[in-house]
């Protein structure tokens, strides 16, 4: 029983689920201290920034954290760690394009002067060099799907000691997703990039993730070894035969999730930006009409 949940940086605390219940996967929930620490740290960061008060948008921020907890504790994570590349990909995309943008959108508006300066400095860098955020958002997906890195990012990959790579993976996705979202959804609207540039930003991101998805979809079966290993927990029959998700189908689905729904998120974002830009009334503050001197340091 203990071994069943020893698959992350720190031992997990099972919420429910029993050994040998190979006919149902949905009971396999667990809380992992590593993830809990990360969430606690991010909650603390919010309180630090907001001066201990919940401000407007806090729901988005903490909604992002709850989503992160769900992705990391639910049976989706169990499937992702042991059986399904496609579940793994769904988890990545939710963290990168769901949790991270929610955290950025929910950052507190009223912050102290020092924090304001830091936020302005970060925003300025990312606004003036949008390729930085772009490279983080796309690069992180490509990096973690290099086959050797991918296989190493599972706890079983290391025979001894504690493998911190899974936690690093989650954290890096969150950080890269935040940096990617920042030029478009950042807390200081005046530093957001031109919406039309934003459309290009998201469209090229779509191309970037499409290429990765295409490679995974049409790559020969077996280049990602992890999911071809032995059936550790007895669910192989259920998943491969009961659900009909063979290893080949699973790899294709993983690639296709990266390719099609992921792109759909980027394209929806593009259309949202475009709609706002086209329907903005004359005189309504847009990215450049806010009166802010982009060279200035203080808002």
């Amino acid at each position, binding site marked *: 029983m203990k071994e069943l949940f020893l698959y992350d940086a720190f031992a997990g605390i099972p919420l429910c689920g029993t050994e040998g219940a190979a006919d149902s996967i949905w009971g396999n929930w667990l809380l992992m201290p590593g993830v809990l620490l990360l969430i606690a740290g991010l909650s603390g960061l919010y309180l630090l920034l907001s001066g201990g008060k919940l401000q407007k948008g806090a729901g988005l921020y903490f909604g992002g954290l709850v989503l992160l907890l769900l992705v990391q504790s639910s049976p989706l994570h169990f499937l992702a760690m042991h059986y399904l590349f496609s579940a793994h990909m769904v988890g990545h995309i939710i963290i990168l394009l769901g949790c991270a943008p929610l955290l950025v959108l929910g950052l507190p508006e009223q912050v102290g002067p020092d924090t304001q300066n830091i936020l302005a400095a970060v925003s300025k860098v990312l606004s003036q060099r949008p390729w930085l955020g772009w490279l983080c958002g796309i690069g992180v997906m490509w990096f973690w799907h290099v086959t050797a890195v991918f296989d190493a990012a599972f706890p079983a990959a290391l025979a001894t000691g504690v493998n911190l790579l899974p936690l690093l993976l989650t954290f890096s996705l969150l950080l890269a997703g935040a940096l990617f979202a920042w030029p478009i959804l950042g807390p200081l609207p005046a530093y957001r990039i031109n919406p039309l540039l934003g459309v290009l930003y998201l469209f090229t991101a779509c191309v970037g993730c499409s290429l990765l998805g295409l490679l995974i979809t049409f790559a020969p079966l077996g280049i990602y070894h992890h999911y071809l290993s032995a059936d550790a927990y007895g669910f192989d029959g259920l998943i491969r035969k009961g659900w009909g998700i063979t290893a080949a189908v699973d790899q294709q689905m993983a690639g296709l999730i990266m390719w099609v729904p992921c792109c759909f998120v980027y*394209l929806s974002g593009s259309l949202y930006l475009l709609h706002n830009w086209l329907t903005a009334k004359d005189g309504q503050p847009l990215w450049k009409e806010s009166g802010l001197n982009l060279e200035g340091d203080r808002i």
Partner: protein
Amino acid sequence: MGKLHIPEPEEALPGVELEDNQGLLQWISSVDHKQIGIMYLWMALFFMLLGGLGALLMRVQLAVPRNDLLSPEIYNQVFTMHGTTMIFLVATPAILGFSVYLSPLMIGANDMAFPRLNAFSFWIALCGGFLLYFSFLAGGAPDAGWFNYAPLNQRPYSPSPGIDYYCIGLLLAGSGTVATAVNLIVTVLKLRVPSMSLRELPVFVWMVLINSFLILAAFPSLNAALAMLLLDRQLQAHFFDIAGGGSSLLWQHLFWLFGHPEVYILILPAFGILSEVFQVFSRKPIFGYAFIVGSGMAIALLAFGVWIHHMFATGLGITVNGFFSASSLLIGIPTGVKIFSWLGTMWGGSLRFTTAMLFATAFLVEFTIGGLSGVSFAIVPIDWQLTDTYYVVAHLHYVFVGGSLFGLLAGLFYWFPKMSGKIIPEKQGKWFFWLFVIGFNMTFLIQHALGVLGMPRRVYTYPDLPNYTWMNMLSTAGAFIMGFSVLYLGFIIYKSIKSGKKAPDDPWNAYTLEWLTTSPPQLQNFKEVPPVKSFRPLRDLKQDNPNWQLQDDPWKID
């Protein structure tokens, strides 16, 4: 005869004085966007006659079962050249012709950003077309379809040099198209009259801008594939050669990564034309400007995520097919938004059914038929059943002819007075419209049924199966009516240019800046452009000047 006014500063062309009667030289050496635009349109008409001749040859061959007028080898060359010509040498030059002619005029500019590059693009595209046709004299035209699938395009299956000419011809034409796209983007972004913000661009110019980005993103895939194929054929590379470790499926990926966006490349400018025509002849602003521009961009963005639906029958697997079936269905949404925007524009408007408006209205019906048959192909089992049948032929013609060409013809009749300074009599225009519409539907509507009955495309003849003969005969009769109508179009254009009535500057009481200048415009489009306050600047100008005299109404001119 008088002096030719050259809109260049004296120091740029010191001492140059020309008579205004330079004849053909003035066209060949021109870098003026209007002349280049018109030459693109002449090029499209010329190749349309050639491509149409190929189509009639095919329809004669298919008029009766077991016909042996054309051999299978010649038939393969004819249908390949018909498709290639119509896509690359008719539709593409026609949209580029309208784009380079109208974009500078509609944004208040005097020329394209790079006039010499504009001329280069046209001439290289024309040379590409001639090279393609030179293949007939060089040992045989390409014969693997306009999509040129591997391994049919490899030497063992197509030893004549036709495919090599296909590669070189399309590479030249494609390079010209990419260069024009760059030119249009820079022109629209940098040469607009200063008071015209992007949110005040006429819808046509928006579509041209979006389309140019689409060209930049899509054509490199085709150009790369053509270069790889040329290496395969000339230097024994193995990109698409399975025996040598290549992949024939790779050709299809690269081709359709270009080919599906190409469908939108050919339709988006037509959408722009229709948006202008519907506004002017409904006497209303476009219904949902933001939606019509946004949906154009949505189409362009989605265009790159659906190409796999051209490959459902290649064995990519249920999973892949399922995902792309869903994404392909999505693209119907922005297209539907446009249709409703145009209907909304017409709704409650003061409609004037000129020939241009008739083509625009007919477009709504024909393109919707093509769109719905397209949606049916997104459903995998239907695709498997109907792929490679005449249902596909019917579908693609309803999209390319009922969609793109109807839009382009609406544009031709709408802007002809501006381009030529002459009026096409409405009566003659309407004769052409009805002949063309009847011929088109007679030719292609029945092909849906032929496809469902199982008649395969790209096969030079067919057995005498029940219903096949009369259906094919009907289709052939329709094709001849279409052919006749195109000749009639050539005749009325020629006659109008030669002896038509002079067109006023603003014959339709229109909304956009090109109607502010003379018909036809001088070399220098504008000496002065009024401040732009909306996407209907000329209408604003008229409203702000109560004494503005409307010119002759073409309803009375005819």
